[in-house]
């Protein structure tokens, strides 16, 4: 509306200027000095006008795009209120500062400060504020307190610590929009976890580390717990939060890598199995179906699973691995991670027996072990179990010797004595 009015006024002005000029042209014999004076005056006034316009333009601040322009009315009102309350004599920075960190954050954003810098400025201040509170609930100090008193005090202290941390995280989220953690950011900046989470983009890795740091106290608390339900509950919360910042593909990849770190540590010869990269990844998918790696596997190189798979789970995993690799390559896999199988295979090779025989003996072992577990779980007297287990062992031994033609003192039997013996223990 305003612009069109200005344009209208300009359009009306043009004919007037033309009539002035034409009027001058109609009187060619007027006094020359007067004409010159008017011309100089006209030029001088035009120059003044031009210079004034120029100076006005260059001294006027360009309107920077501020965060207020993109945010809701409540926050804009808050910011406007704070700006208007600033003392006029303060330095530009002092005008941004406020004891109320939410206001400080709003002011910084309104000035166009990037969100990362707002975070870097305010997070230590939030830490500091809550640090005072943490110090006020410092560790129980009665050195000579008895065990019950110390345990109760320590438990209350941990509870208070967790509650305080939750309050702090809430405040951080309110002020900064995401529950950043100084420790998590430090970890990201030191690239300590670049070897494990470097598959993610830096921003996602940073968030993953911050979320994990927030859960650390809770993970530590349940790490030694016998209660699987508690461990699972904490893991699930962590997982839910991670799901919000990572794509399903990134999340899966992160979990698989965590599992691999643990699996390789537990099976140091795995890399000699001759697997391809995709086969290794698929095997880790099978492992992840059995259990999950605690996040500490990725961050701190720990070795802990949410829950150790039972023997049934391990057997299921091996069936899947065999299906993936085929018999021949499954033999190589077993050779890399099962010492007894490796020795059996070596003994058979020495006797020029076929490799597949090792697999037959392995199947026999798996079946006998599974059956032994069923017997142990039966609700019968121990003497009865013992009888059944002894019979099972005898049967397994007979089948073993029948398959392998091994005598009672053969090296092959000595190698496999351990599991045969284990079978008969109730």
């Amino acid at each position, binding site marked *: 509306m305003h612009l069109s009015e200005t344009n209208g006024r300009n359009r009306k002005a043009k004919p007037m200027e033309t009539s002035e000029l034409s009027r001058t042209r109609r009187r060619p014999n007027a006094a020359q000095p007067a004409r010159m*004076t*008017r011309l100089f*005056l006209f030029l*001088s*006034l035009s*120059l*003044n006008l031009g*210079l*004034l316009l*120029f*100076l006005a333009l260059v001294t006027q*601040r*360009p309107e*920077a795009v501020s965060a207020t322009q993109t945010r809701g009315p409540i926050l804009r009102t808050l910011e406007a209120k704070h700006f208007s309350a600033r003392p*006029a*004599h303060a330095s*530009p*920075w002092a*005008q*941004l500062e406020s004891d109320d960190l939410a206001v400080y954050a709003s002011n910084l954003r*309104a*000035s*166009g400060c*990037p969100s*990362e*810098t707002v975070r*870097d*400025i305010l997070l*230590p201040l939030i830490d500091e504020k809550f640090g005072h509170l943490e110090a006020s609930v*410092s*560790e*129980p*100090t009665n*050195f000579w307190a*008895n*065990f019950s008193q110390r345990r109760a005090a320590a438990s209350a202290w941990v509870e208070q610590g967790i509650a305080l941390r939750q309050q702090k995280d809430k405040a951080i989220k309110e002020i900064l929009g995401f529950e950043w953690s100084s420790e998590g*950011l430090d970890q*990201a*900046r030191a*690239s300590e976890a*670049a*070897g494990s989470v*470097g598959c993610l*983009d*830096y921003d996602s890795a940073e968030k993953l580390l911050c979320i994990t740091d927030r859960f650390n106290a809770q993970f530590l608390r349940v790490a030694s717990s*016998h*209660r*699987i339900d508690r461990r699972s509950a904490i893991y699930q919360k962590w997982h839910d939060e991670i799901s919000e910042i990572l794509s399903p593909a990134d999340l899966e990849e992160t979990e698989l890598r965590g599992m691999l*770190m643990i699996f390789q*540590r537990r099976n*140091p010869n795995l890399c000699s199995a001759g697997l391809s*990269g*995709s*086969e*290794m990844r698929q095997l880790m998918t099978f492992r992840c179906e059995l259990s999950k790696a605690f996040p500490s596997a990725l961050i701190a190189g720990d070795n802990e699973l949410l829950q150790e798979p039972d023997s049934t789970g391990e057997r299921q995993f091996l069936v899947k691995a065999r299906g993936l690799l085929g018999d021949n390559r499954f033999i190589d896999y077993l050779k890399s991670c099962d010492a007894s199988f490796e020795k059996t295979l070596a003994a058979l090779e020495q006797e020029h027996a076929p490799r597949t025989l090792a697999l037959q003996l392995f199947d026999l072992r798996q079946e006998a072990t599974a059956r032994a577990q069923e017997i142990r779980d039966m609700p019968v*007297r*121990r*003497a009865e179990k*013992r009888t059944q287990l002894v019979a099972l062992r005898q049967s397994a031994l007979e089948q073993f010797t029948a398959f392998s033609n091994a005598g009672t003192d053969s090296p092959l039997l000595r190698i496999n004595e351990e599991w045969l013996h284990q079978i008969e223990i*109730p």
Partner: protein
Amino acid sequence: MSSRLLTFSVCLNLVLLGATGYWAASIHSGGNIPLALPATNRQTETSAVPAPANVAIEATATPLRWNELESEDYAIYITNLRKAGCPEPVLRRIISADLKELYARKAFALVKEFHRDFWEIAARENVRYYYDTTLAQRVKALCEEPDPLLKELVGGSIAELSRASAGSSLVTHFIDFLSAAKQQQLRALTERYEVQQEAVRQADLSPQEEKSRLAQLRLEMESEQAQILLPEELAEYQLRRSTAACELRALCGVDFSETELRNLTKTLNDYHHRIASQAEPDTQTLDEKLESVLGPARFTDFSRARSTGYREIYEVVTDFGRPTETAAEIFEMRLASEKQSDQIRADKNRPPEEKQALLDELEEQVEQGVRTRLGAEAYQSYKARGGLWINSLGRF
């Protein structure tokens, strides 16, 4: 009239041309000063005298714009922040975080190839070992690169900045019996010596030399502590910080009074000092001494409290919310049944079959007893981690 107007207009021309010239000159002379920063900020850079009030008001009336502070050149960015009145600690935080992140992103770029080939590498070698031996050092070096730069820019390395807030590692419960002033002195002293100890550990010394220097520092620190504390305060402080006190705090599931704990600490400390000069530790004598200090009943409690087996049961019992007495009952059951199974095995008057039957019966009884006390879920959990002794009862 026209000529007077012309004179005035020409004068105005000159004034306006002068103003334009001044503006152009100021742009050229202040190359690193952002275009629209208020003039007073430039004044504060060149003059220690505060600007007149009216100038300051005029300068600060306009809100700060971040895009005018930022620069791709850190030196300019810092100058601009300082000019805007950014406090030094905040400035350090901004620059330190910015620099560290910049290099961390470079580190992430450095490991990109490794992550692209991650599964192929994992198929042929241990990925963690591969990373540690091929990339970890380079990543670490890259992340340490900002340290000297930060020192140059804001006068302190990242490590120094983080150390500044570290404080001493002195735990409050060692010193809470002292006055606040003495606590403060002791903390300061500890912090000072911790820095020196760390320097010794970081120095490239032989193990013997390092040990000797650390011992020397410890002696010096103790001597200074003696100057701060009264003799009885020093004795209490040393008692609390002793290895024996630390051992006793690890006892599980039994409550000892303060007197008992103090007596136990002193007895254990005496023992530790004595065995330092002996080749073979004499645990039998120690136990006799402890029993004489506590009395037979409390010594039994003490033995239970220091047993790993008891701790395992105690943890399960408390984890599953059972009464803590249950842990003591199960532990007693364990001691008694293990003794009984040893007797059965050692009995020369019974045939093996009979011994096995007796052992089976014993194991079943104990298993039932433990299961009843713990409940099915807790029992399964205990058996998987600490309860293997139950199965050992029936083994002949």
